[in-house]
């Protein structure tokens, strides 16, 4: 018991100043905490509850009719549009995310270079994030601003059709139709890469150049490994952005199901759709995490292994020490009882 007490950290009573600072800290984060609780956790729990019901919102009150897994079976078995859209979404996201990330990285490297009017160019590349949102984006798409006129999308689709299944070639073909729009989605990612690039120690490049490293080698050996965590971050951000923006037909479908007046649809049906969709989005995020999640390099692994070995050695030393103490006690006891003899050289033990 005494030992346990010793192991516990002593409770430190906060001083007046620290208490005040802690309170101020809590007050600062309070809006966020309330926001998360009210606008995220509560709707999340609510939608989880809703998905097991058929909900009718009448002027006299809300009717909850339990349907069990009825909403799910209806979505998968009676709504052919949802599975189709999910397949399209999967292909598009898997192809679009690398396009966005690579484009953002290229632009970030260029904007990080020593060029004239660098500030202006940085502003230009971030502008779409501010301007092209919601209805503006919808209008631009409807006016055909998302396509590159010189690109013959139909030929690309036909070519893809020759060696890919139709649903896959159609989805990938759509990416070429919306190429400009996809590139417009890169604003935030460029910013993240830019900040990561600026944090790389210039001494590394200097040392590499002294050793005769080319720009190409510097990119692969210094830049890319250093900003690798940012690639994962940007990939995840892109997946979430593509999955939740207004151009996503699944979002439109969920929204229209939510406000649909038909008796099968409504809040319950839309909630079930949204939960299944979020599960699929999570799976895609996991996929990118598995692909891009940082793996330690050989040096890191060796250090880790050495640390493990050192810990093991320390444990062995402690064990030997403990055994020695135990044996010493045993000998002491036996001596007291006088039945402990040491070897006297007579040949008898």
């Amino acid at each position, binding site marked *: 018991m005494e030992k346990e007490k010793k192991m516990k950290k002593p409770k430190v009573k906060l001083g007046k100043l620290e208490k*005040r600072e802690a*309170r*101020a800290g809590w*007050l*600062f984060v*309070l*809006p966020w905490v*309330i*926001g998360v609780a*009210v606008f995220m956790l509560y709707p999340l729990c609510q939608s989880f509850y809703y998905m097991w019901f058929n909900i*009718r*919102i*009448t*002027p*006299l*009150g*809300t*009717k909850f*009719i339990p349907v069990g897994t009825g909403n799910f079976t209806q979505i998968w078995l*009676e709504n*052919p*549009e949802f599975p189709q859209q999910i397949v399209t979404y999967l292909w598009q996201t898997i192809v679009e995310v690398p396009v966005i990330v690579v484009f953002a990285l290229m632009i970030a490297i260029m904007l990080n270079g020593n060029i004239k009017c660098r500030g202006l160019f940085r502003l230009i590349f971030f502008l779409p994030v501010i301007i092209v949102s919601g209805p503006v984006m919808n209008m631009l798409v409807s006016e055909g601003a998302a396509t590159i006129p010189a690109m013959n999308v139909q030929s690309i689709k036909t070519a893809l059709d020759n060696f890919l299944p139709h649903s896959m070639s159609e989805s990938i073909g759509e990416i070429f139709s919306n190429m400009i729009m996809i590139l417009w989605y890169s604003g935030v990612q460029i910013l993240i890469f830019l900040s990561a690039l600026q944090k790389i120690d210039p001494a590394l490049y200097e040392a590499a150049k002294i050793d005769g490293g080319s720009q190409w080698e510097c990119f692969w050996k210094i830049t890319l490994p250093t900003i690798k965590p940012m690639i994962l971050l940007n990939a995840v951000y892109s997946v979430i952005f593509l999955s939740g923006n207004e151009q996503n037909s699944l979002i439109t479908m969920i929204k229209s199901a939510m*406000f*649909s*007046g*038909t*008796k*099968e649809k*409504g809040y319950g049906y839309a909630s079930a759709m949204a939960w299944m969709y979020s599960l699929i989005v999570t799976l895609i995020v996991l996929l990118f995490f598995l692909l891009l999640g940082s793996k330690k390099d050989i040096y890191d692994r060796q250090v880790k292994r050495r640390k493990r070995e050192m810990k093991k050695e320390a444990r062995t030393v402690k064990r030997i020490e403990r055994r020695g103490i135990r044996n010493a006690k045993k000998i002491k006891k036996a001596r007291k009882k006088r039945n402990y003899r040491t070897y006297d050289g007579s040949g008898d033990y």
Partner: protein
Amino acid sequence: MKKKILSLLLACSMVFGLAACGNGDGGNSGNTGNADNSGNGGGEGAGGVTTENITLTFWHYEDPTTVSLLAEKFMDMYPNITVEHRVIEDMSTDLSNAAASGTFPDVFEGTDSDTALANMYWADISEYFDADPENQNLMATISEYGIGCFDTSARFAVPMMYWPSAIFIDRNVIKNLNLEMPRTDWTWAEMVQLVKDATKDERTGMKYYGLGYYNRLDSLYGIAACSPDERALKGEFGFDGTDFDLSYWAVGEQEFSDLKLAGYVAPQQDTAEMEAWSGNWSTWFGATGRVAVFSEGFWTYQNLWGQEGYQEEYGLDIVPYVTPNVVDEKEHNVIANMYMGGVSTSCKHPYEAYLLLKFMGWGIDGWKARLEIYSDTSITNDSGMPLKNAQMPMPITLDEEVWEGYKALFPQDDRKPYWDDYFASVTRPVPYGWYSIAGYWNFCDQYFNKIGIHDLVDKGSAKAADYVDEATRQANYYHAEAMISYFGPGGYDVLSDEELAKYQAVVDSFN
């Protein structure tokens, strides 16, 4: 200290912001199902109208300037009633949000009856409607076919805004092509023949097309195929009040497709075909002077062709014709857009709300007020358009005084006989399915539109007749299921056991 004040301010603003988001009435979690027709609350004046000061909310699809002026007239008649109104942007979104937040309107117009019935938005107003003598003088099909009753014994809605289908003919084109103007009580076959005769490609200048369409001919044919003797078709897709029979539709669909494929139909706006024909992607065929017959909406005349100087500018001379019937009979049913209006189930003053509904829709007082507003062309809406050119509907009352005033709003020159004949022949309206048939929209949304029948038949890759059996089976199922759901024990509960069993048998046979 500064930090503390700043954080306090942030937290307070957040909390107050959230408080402001709430509706404050504690929400509606009760579930009584039926309409609250419990009375007027407070004292009653002449005619049973409350003497209390009350406010009624009216949501609609009309021009807001027109409704504001009408609301003023209504408030002059009932000084203790204040009317607040707003335009509905999207019916299901606006109304479901209003129901969830407890701000549901007292009276509203709807374009999709399934939404209103599935969520029990409309209250049963039979008591008020049946007791009102003015309603005896409405167009015959309203009571004959129970438009607004949805094949039940109760009335939930009444047609508020009525626009009959119309066929317009450009007299200039007929003259240029040396053709005869058809008689005003023409038949379907005569119309199709005119479309064919008026299609001419002279290789010099733009081709003449026989037909320019907004309404597909198969929609019109669905009602036109019904002979006045049988008068069995109460709605689209061969609906007779209980069952569908899409064989009527299939004939019209195939005929329309054949006309399109044979080149008798003008290209639509914003298509490559239009660019090839007129040289401009965004040209509308109704402004080319090269199309003889138009299956346009009735409002196209008011909103465009009827505007001063429009026809002169584009060299048009447009006159209306009734949508013809397959049988040579003067009086026949015509398909129409009929926005349904009703009193909401949450309304606390249903009688007063009914009076407002009637005034804004079909009532004689309301129409007299409308005619005053429409005849004064100096009154314009926000777009600067005289109100008679802004979505003016047609009366469903047969009151002569109202009709006299209404007809005076249309051309009084040599086109007058065409207009008079047209008005005389649109007194038996049958609404499009989504206004009047339970389950119709579900059927279209989940079956008919999903498999893209129109596109397949229009392209010539399928025949309409191939879909008749399955589409009829599906339509009957969706209707029966909707009837049970809306009007059975889980809904309004107005169906008898026999009716329920009949609809249940259809559902069971489908499964």
